[in-house]
């Protein structure tokens, strides 16, 4: 029996607002799954339902055989009986307790022996590299240190699950990048099943085994990072996870999974579709284009797109151009400045995504 986290049919409404709309997903034991989405998408509510800080209207949440919430059986465990660890956005270190006492809090409640408490607290503090800070108060620590104490406090009880609520969002950009590497290594080292909430897609890609993209309470796609990037399920997902521009177009020709689309400018683009959708000729579609993959054409003969330059902005390392294709605008980057006010762009097949209109 594995100890996967299983969520089935989770529903939570606030008045008329569907905060969570029939959400189901499974996190494999030891994996890190990220709930990703814009603010108000229901990711934090979902996390709070797992934590027991919020009661869902319907649904089942279990870790292995241990049901945390099962509305069908009228079972909703209070947070203190769920045996979880959680790191909050504000870290929520208790300001009136020293670092040691913060970490030792749960163990004391469990009536663990004194010397055992001491041993385990220092193990946890060693894990986050803060054993020498045990006698400090939280207000004497930097933001990054506070976050690590919060993590030590969350894992010291060897919980069933680790829940992380945007733990990096209060850190400076530089520390944040280091922290996510560190956090990911630590999670793999401890091997604890983790649910991570963030609105930052690069954080999600850097850390996750699985990413769940949510919007307006619904789960839009649940997939490993590479798959999510390669074939986003909807236009919203494509837009949210990467710098994607959208043009209007129509199916020009179908040859198995090889498709050709015609965009408004009359240019024909070839691509291979991995979405498994059924297309018909002349069907109106939305063409998603990954800006970072677009190049200035250098002798290529197909997948060319002709566009006029609207505005060019110098960004130091590169130039960014906003171009008008006649069927929508597109952002393109080049290393050198462009002299002409019209451009021929080359779109590699894997830079093009297709969505029904």
């Amino acid at each position: 029996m594995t100890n996967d986290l299983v969520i089935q049919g989770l529903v939570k409404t606030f008045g008329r607002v569907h905060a969570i709309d029939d959400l189901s997903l499974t996190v494999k034991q030891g994996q890190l799954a990220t709930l990703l989405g814009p603010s108000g998408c229901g990711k934090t509510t979902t996390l709070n339902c797992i934590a027991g800080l919020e009661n869902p209207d319907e649904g089942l949440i279990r870790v292995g055989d241990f049901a945390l919430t099962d509305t069908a059986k009228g079972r909703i465990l209070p947070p203190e009986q769920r045996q979880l660890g959680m790191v909050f956005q504000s870290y929520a270190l208790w300001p009136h307790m020293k670092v040691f006492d913060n970490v030792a809090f749960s163990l004391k409640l469990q009536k663990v022996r004194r010397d055992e408490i001491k041993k385990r607290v220092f193990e946890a503090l060693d894990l986050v590299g803060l054993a020498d800070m045990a006698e400090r108060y939280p207000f004497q620590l930097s933001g990054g240190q506070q976050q690590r104490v919060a993590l030590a406090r969350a894992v010291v009880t060897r919980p069933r699950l680790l829940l992380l609520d945007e733990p990096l969002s209060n850190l400076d950009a530089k520390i944040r990048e280091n922290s996510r590497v560190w956090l990911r290594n630590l999670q793999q080292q401890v091997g604890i099943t983790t649910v991570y909430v963030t609105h930052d897609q690069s954080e999600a890609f850097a850390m996750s085994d699985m990413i769940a993209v949510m919007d307006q309470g619904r789960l839009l796609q649940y997939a490993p990072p590479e798959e999510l990037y390669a074939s986003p399920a909807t236009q919203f997902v494509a837009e949210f996870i990467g710098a994607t521009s959208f043009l209007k177009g129509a199916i020009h020709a179908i040859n198995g999974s090889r498709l050709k689309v015609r965009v408004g400018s009359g240019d024909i683009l070839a691509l291979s579709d991995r979405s498994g959708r059924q297309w018909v000729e002349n069907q109106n579609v939305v063409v998603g284009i990954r800006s970072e993959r677009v190049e200035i054409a250098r002798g290529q003969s197909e997948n060319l797109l002709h566009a006029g330059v609207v505005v060019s902005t110098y960004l130091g390392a590169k130039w960014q151009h906003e171009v008008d294709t006649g069927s929508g605008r597109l952002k393109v980057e080049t290393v050198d400045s462009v002299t002409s006010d019209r451009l021929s762009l080359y779109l590699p097949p894997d830079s093009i995504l297709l969505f029904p209109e």
Partner: protein
Amino acid sequence: MATLSRAVQPLKRSWDRAIQWGVVIVTAILVIFPAWPILLQSIMDRPLYDKARALTLNNFVKVFSNPDFYAVVGRTIVFGLTTTVLSVGVGMLLAIFVVRTNMPGRRLLRNLITIPYYVSPLVLAFAWGTMYGPQGYVTILARTLHLPDWNLYSLGGIIIVSMMYTMPYTYLYISASLSLSDPQLESAARIGGANPFITLLRITVPLLRPAITYSFLLILVTTMELLSIPLVLGIPVGIEVLSTYLYKLGIVGVTTDYGSIAVVSIMVVLLVTGLVILQGRLVAQERRFVTVGGKATRPKPLDLGGWKWLVSIAVGLFIFMFIILPLVALILQASTPFVSPFINPLTMLSTDNFRVIWNTATYRQSLSNSLLIGLIGAAIGIFFTTISAITAYRTKFKARTAVRYLSLYPRAFPGLIVGIGFLWAFLMIPGIGAIRNTIWVMMIAFIMRYLPLGFSSISPSVLQISDELDRAARISGSTWFGATWRILFPILRPAMLSGYFLLFIAFLKEYSVALFLFARGSQVIGTTMIELWRQGNTGPVAALAVMQLAITAVVLLISQRVLGVKLHD
């Protein structure tokens, strides 16, 4: 490309410095004015107005060799500490029940708890006397039912009534602190395995420490200077605390002992100053516990389970017995010839007591005086403290720290002593006898006493306004006062309005400053109530108290419903 034309501005002469110096000087005079005659008198062998006076230390020797003085100091400390502990305990418990639990009827109870905040302690003492005094409604009822007897006119009675008067302050501070604290701190404890009760005990309550320390010392200071409740309930049975001791020395005694009054006053001011300094220190030390509020929604309130109705009934009963009933008794006493549990009060309703007040010119005048002092004095007070706060926090003026300290220092002056100081100062300065007995003197004394209230009600709002706003005005060519007048004042209007009402209610309630100062023509509601009470006219006292309550209620209603003013969070 549009061009911007440059306006040539003539250099305006700036009055900024003059206004800022004016603020410091006026505040300094207000604060020093009542203090110096008391200091001077303490080392003089005769009253200040006596030309033959000479330096002496005898006054100190006299007070310190009097065993009565030590007994009074001891009793004051017992009274102060007991009242404070009870007040903080009850206030905190009520705040937790109302803010953090699912006790039914929280909204209604929340509003009722703060009622004593708006009632003069003098009125509260009368009201309790009517309901729980030896001839009180409930007392007689209990006696006929052969329930255990009690005596309100005792140290215990004084403590209970003072606790009820001060409890709303604790309640307000602690509930504000509770609703500001980061709910994630409690959630973290729950996740860590603590049930709601342990969370409350180990996390919520310890986090209240700054608020508890603050209100503990605030209330200790309040009890040290509280005059009316020990006066009404203690003097008739010979129980004296420092404030009533001073009152007796100055007003009741056959010959006024100026030297002793001065020495006792200095002792009280020193004691209170010490407490105020301690308060500042401790609160600064505990600030490290203050956390930035989280963005998360409030956690679910603590579920009291089956206990919730019991708690609700207990709290409701407490409020009914200790807050509602005394005020009902007061209204009954005002509108009937006498109060007795054996006669239905509705059968003997009469407006006689109100008529006595209304038809006696001096009594009626005390109403109009109080209203006038409140309406005009509060406006001057809030206007002045706003300029002071802006001078203190929004200038590079070198005396700005002095403005802050001077504005807050009157906290250490009990009202009675402010009154004594002003009286003596006016007695000493020749040629201003004409204004001595006017309500304008009273108004100045009231404003001085409540400088700290005005200043501290407005300064959080001043500090909240981004200083880029007035800097932008300065860059655009405005003077400091111009920026203050055109930018800060309009933004501060809501805060000034609520400060105005706070001061108005404080002025309407004030009596202790007036006790020494008032003369025929400058009597206020409080002094008239004490006069009537000393003559044994309990009916008219109640009528006047009801009128004061009615004015307060109307003003509160107008300020909150019509003007949308929030007096506290």
